[in-house]
């Protein structure tokens, strides 16, 4: 009797500890499963790397600007997770993320919104060294590339490489002030008109709609596949990481870290 009781107790304790370990590992797997789809599959944004030498460069090698409602994709995804997926996994799941993420510790917000993409930099803007973007258009060019006047000084250097669907390319690079007014078509943008249907691509850095320190890519009647996008900052004392909202599984809430140095 004594042995039987001891055996059963031991077996139950073992089962409990294994169940607890499994549960915790399962929570981790579920979190990874949910987050792994957010960045590349839903926002189409692919981080290449975060490199640290004399400066820190955050480098992306894919993003698509097309007629897509990224906010809707994200809300559909959240709704699926918080309903159907939650029932299937028998866990309490709630998540809070959208079509943006933040580059920390620089407090730069990235947003992708259909045909447009923006970086919202935080002051002081002196920690931005350069922004380098290469993109391929889905249509033909109409004319040639325009670029803003160079502001000189210690302003960040903005480099833009555009390739149209026929392989024609243009490359421009200027030092631009993060607080200069960049209202549309005031001659302060990198700009290329496109054909069939008539459209354009516009890339600007500076003050946009009253807010300083914005880098934005706007397209109309064309698609743009961003093949390279490097943002170069001054060195930070802490590790650089990309974060986007939070996720809660069985009341355990954690920040969503999409990538880190």
């Amino acid at each position, binding site marked *: 009797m004594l*042995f039987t009781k001891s*055996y059963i107790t031991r077996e139950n304790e073992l089962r409990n500890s294994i169940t607890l370990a499994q549960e915790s590992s399962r929570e981790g797997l579920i979190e990874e*499963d949910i987050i792994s789809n957010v960045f590349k599959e839903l926002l189409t944004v692919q981080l290449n790397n975060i490199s640290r030498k004399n400066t820190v460069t955050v480098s992306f090698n894919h993003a698509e600007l097309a007629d897509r409602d990224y906010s809707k994709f994200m809300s559909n995804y959240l709704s699926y997770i918080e309903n159907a997926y939650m029932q299937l996994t028998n866990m309490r799941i709630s998540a809070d993320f959208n079509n943006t993420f933040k580059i920390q510790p620089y407090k730069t917000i990235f947003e992708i919104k259909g045909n447009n993409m923006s970086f919202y930099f935080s002051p002081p803007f002196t920690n931005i060294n350069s922004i380098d973007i290469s993109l391929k258009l889905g249509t033909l060019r109409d004319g040639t590339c325009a670029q803003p006047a160079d502001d000189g000084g210690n302003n960040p250097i903005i480099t833009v490489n555009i390739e149209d669907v026929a392989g024609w390319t243009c490359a421009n690079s200027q030092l631009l002030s993060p607080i200069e007014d960049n209202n549309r078509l005031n001659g302060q943008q990198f700009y290329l008109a496109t054909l069939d249907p008539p459209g354009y691509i516009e890339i600007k850095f500076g003050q946009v709609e009253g807010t300083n320190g914005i880098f934005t890519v706007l397209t109309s009647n064309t698609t743009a596949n961003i093949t390279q996008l490097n943002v170069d900052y001054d060195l930070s004392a802490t590790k650089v990481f990309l974060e986007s909202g939070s996720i809660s599984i069985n009341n355990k809430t954690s920040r969503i870290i999409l990538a880190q140095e």
Partner: protein
Amino acid sequence: MHLIKINKKAVVFTMDAMFALFITLSFFIFINDSLSEPSGSIYSNIDLLQLSNDGLAVLEKSGILENSIKNLNNSELQIYLNGFPEQICGNITLYNSINLKLLSAVKSSCAESDMNAISRRIFISKSDIYLAVMEVWYFET
């Protein structure tokens, strides 16, 4: 010379007692061995669960889940399952976001079993949400 007279009865009792002691000790050692090792069934389920979790992660990262949905073809899933070790059986079913079954594949020559481990993984294809479910179990003859 003084000879000690051996009591034959006492010898029998002593041997009997030693034999009983031997049996009892063997029993204790046997029981102790059994108690110090947990039953295998607890761990075998963990192994199966790890296999199914890893399997789905590999299928997603390698793009096989997305390809299968794009082409509505289960051949790549079938090839993956047939590559499992001989003693492992498995099946994969793909559902859309409203839980409608779209595709499935079972490892060849495997009969269904109740003793299985189940894993699920979300994947995206053309911004649509899908769910892959993998069940794995030990081959039963």
